[in-house]
Structure formats: C-alpha cells, structure tokens
C-alpha cells in the first residue's frame, strides 16, 4: 500500500487499482469545525478535477475534486451523518470514498509524503 497526496490536500491510500480517498489532517485543521459533508454515490464516474463532494465548515464551503479519473465504489455515509468526524480522524475513519482508479499511470502526477510535507510547511 502506498499513500499519495495532492496539492488540493487530499490523500489516497492505493492498493492495486483501488484506493481510499480523504482530505488531510492539515486541510481539516485549516477548515475548522466541519458541519456539513456532501458526497457522490457509488457507481458514479469522474474525470480528473471533477467536483466529487463538498465540505463545509463554520468558516467556509470548499469543494473536493477528483485527483484522477475514477469511479466511486463506496461513499462514507457516516460523514454525512456526523461531519465532525473529519476533524477527529481525517486520515483514518473519516475517509470520503473507496474508489477504482481508471488509469494507474496517473498516480505519477501525485505527491509523495515528503513532497506534500514540503508543500504545507
């Protein structure tokens, strides 16, 4: 399993051509208390940079974008019922999607942990 990051502060834990996707702890802290999450449904397919969800905090609304071409296998419905999970465990239980990656060669465009750390420092 390899974990990738994006400049949009998302993380992807990849295993073969599937991945778990969420927003980083850094992003959750910057957003402040998350009060609303809206997700897409399983079976939907997206191109890179398509909007795949909305996260709203007490401060602002921000959109979640597809880091690469993907299909939603499962959405984490628990987040819609309990949005504060994002603040509590952004890189664990508060994952947003299980996805199928359409073309794994796109992973080479993403950041590794060191590149992401350099970005947020």
């Amino acid at each position, binding site marked *: 399993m390899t974990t990738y990051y994006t400049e949009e502060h998302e993380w992807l834990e990849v295993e073969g051509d599937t991945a778990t996707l969420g927003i980083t702890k850094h992003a959750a802290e910057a957003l402040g208390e998350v009060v*609303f999450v809206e997700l897409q449904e399983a079976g939907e397919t997206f191109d890179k940079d398509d909007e795949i969800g*909305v996260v*709203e905090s*007490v401060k602002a*609304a921000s959109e979640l974008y597809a880091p690469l071409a993907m299909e939603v296998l499962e959405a984490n419905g628990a987040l819609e019922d309990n949005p504060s999970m994002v603040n509590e465990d952004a890189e664990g239980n508060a994952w947003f999607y299980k996805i199928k990656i359409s073309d794994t060669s796109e992973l080479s465009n993403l950041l590794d942990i060191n590149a992401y750390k350099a970005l947020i420092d």
Partner: protein
Amino acid sequence: MSEPRKTPLYDLHVELGGKMVDFAGWMMPVNYTAGVAAEHKQCREKAALFDVSHMGQVELRGENVAQKLETLCPSSFQPLPAGKARYTFFTNPQGGIMDDLIVANAGDHHFVVVNASMRDQDIAHMRTLDIEVTELARALIAVQGPAAEAIVAAHAPIAAELTFMQTAIAEIAGVEVRISRLGYTGEDGYEISIPEENVVEICRLLLTHPDLEPAGLGARDSLRLEAGLCLYGNDIDNDTSPVEANLNWAMQKKRREEGGFPGAERIQRELAEGPSRKLVGIKPEGRAPARRGVEVADEAGNIIGSITSGGFGPTYDGPVSMGYVSTAHAAEGTSVNLIIRGKPRPATIIKLPFVAQNYKR
C-alpha cells in the same frame, strides 16, 4: 492596498493563538486555538472577549450636536438623555444606508462608534456638519455573554448598574475607561473604550477570570447572525432602505412622521405603502449551509431574492441565513427553495432572530 493596520492588541492575539487575517484593512484574529464553534458557545454560555479596536471611535462637540446629527440620520437624538446610547444609521438621498453606528450622549459631548471599513467616509460625512469631529486613538474591546456583568463589575462596580444601551465613565485598574452596556452578539455584555497604552494590561486582567475566553471575528459573525443583527456591507448597504431591513424600530415616531433626513421621501413612502422586499430569516431544511449570494426561489422556481448572510449557527445547531425576498414571499412560514450549487433545496422563512436576544433591560 496599503499594509493592513494592527490594533494595540495584535501581539496579545498572536500570543493567545489567534489566527490573524486581513479584515477591512486590519489584521484581526478570525479565531483562536479553541476554534469558531467553541468560541461562539463560550460567549452564549459564559463570556467572550473580542477586540473591536478596528472600529472608529469619534467625539462630537459643539452647539446643537443632537439636532445636527438628525439631519444625517432618521433617529431622534434631541430627547436622548445623558448616559444613553442609540443604534442608528446614516441614510443617503436615495433612502439607502451609508453605514450603521452607535451614538451615545456622553453629557458634554456625543460619543460615536462606526464600522472599521466606513471610518473615513463617516468622519468626512459628520464633518459636513458645523461641529467639532475628533477621531479618538483608543482601543475598544467587547466582553459579551451571561457572565459579562460579573467579570466587568468585579473591577468596575458601576457596570452592574447599567442597563442595556447605557454608558458611563469608570475605572478599571486605575485607568479611566468608558463602559457601554451593548454589543453585537445578542448576549448581555459591554463594549469598553480604553486608552491604547492600557488595553493589553486590562485584557490580561479581565482574562484572569475563569469564565472569560478570547473569541475572534468568526464567532462574532456567527453570534450576530443567530441574533438576527445586520452586518453593514452584507445585509444593509447603500441600496437597502431601513424599512426593507426591518429597522423601523431605530427610526423614532417623530422622525418617521416629520422626515428631515436624507432619503426621507423613499423611507416615508415605504413606511406608508410597504417595501417591495424585506429582510427575513431563512432556515434551510437539512444541514447544508446557504451562504451569501445563494439565490432564493419560490416553489414554482421563480427567483424572489437572495441570501445576504448565511452560515452555520453553533448554538442553533444548524444552518442559519438571512436575506431579502419579495414582500409577497416574506411571511413567516413561507416555503422557498435555495439554489445551492445549482440544486434547489427547501427552506422556510422564519422570524428573526434564530437565537433569542438576552439583553439586560
């Protein structure tokens, strides 16, 4: 743009973990380490300390100041007794609102507090009157919440004797300050005008009280929104009239009837015939916040207005919005749709506020 200015409390904000942002040309804390929701609840349940030194504090002196101010504002100042403050606004010749402000009769002068972004405009505007207008270099803090009286009166006992909208000179730790029992959160509390060189020590002293914590602009905004209080530039501006904005209460009867203020023609017409649109509370169903700019549609899909302020209310525990809708759709209980990210979402017109105001009358 020039470099944002800092209030005398800047270093204390940073020390307390304030996340500093440029607001109306001032570096101000949007929140501290506790976060917006916790700071909001702290204010509703105990008390919160806000730095509002970015607002303009002005002294007016001269002959017949009250009478002259009435030529710029639709409120009555001549009957306002010494020691009493009043909410008002400058109107423009078209009956819109140039800014909202607090005017206090301080006995031998009038004391005025105006919005940070409107300081220069408002001071120039008051200088058109034949009076002496002095901008004060003083800090202003707000102590707001049910514990505010105990916290402030521990140092300045007179604070406990003031009622809502009363103001007095007092001493805190040997420093002369002006304490006014008012605020912008819907809670009981005070705004305290303090010499710049003493404000840090006084804030540190007040913060030794276990029920007082600092709160930033984020909580200030969610608190005032739940309390149904207008934000200049969002909910009221040069196009909106006081009648549309439900501010008739700030225009005393004599002034409404006699006119004699800028824009009286439109304001008196709207008072007689009703305005074409009204500022209302809008409660989104579900959990999705509806923020500024979201369009409001009737059930047939016609656009009837838009949201001017909206977000999440931590005490209300749900999304809260306010905005203008055409008068035909402004009745309490009317079902509307909010167009959020292209999708209509149901909402209901409610009577403001979302959270009851808790003033000491």
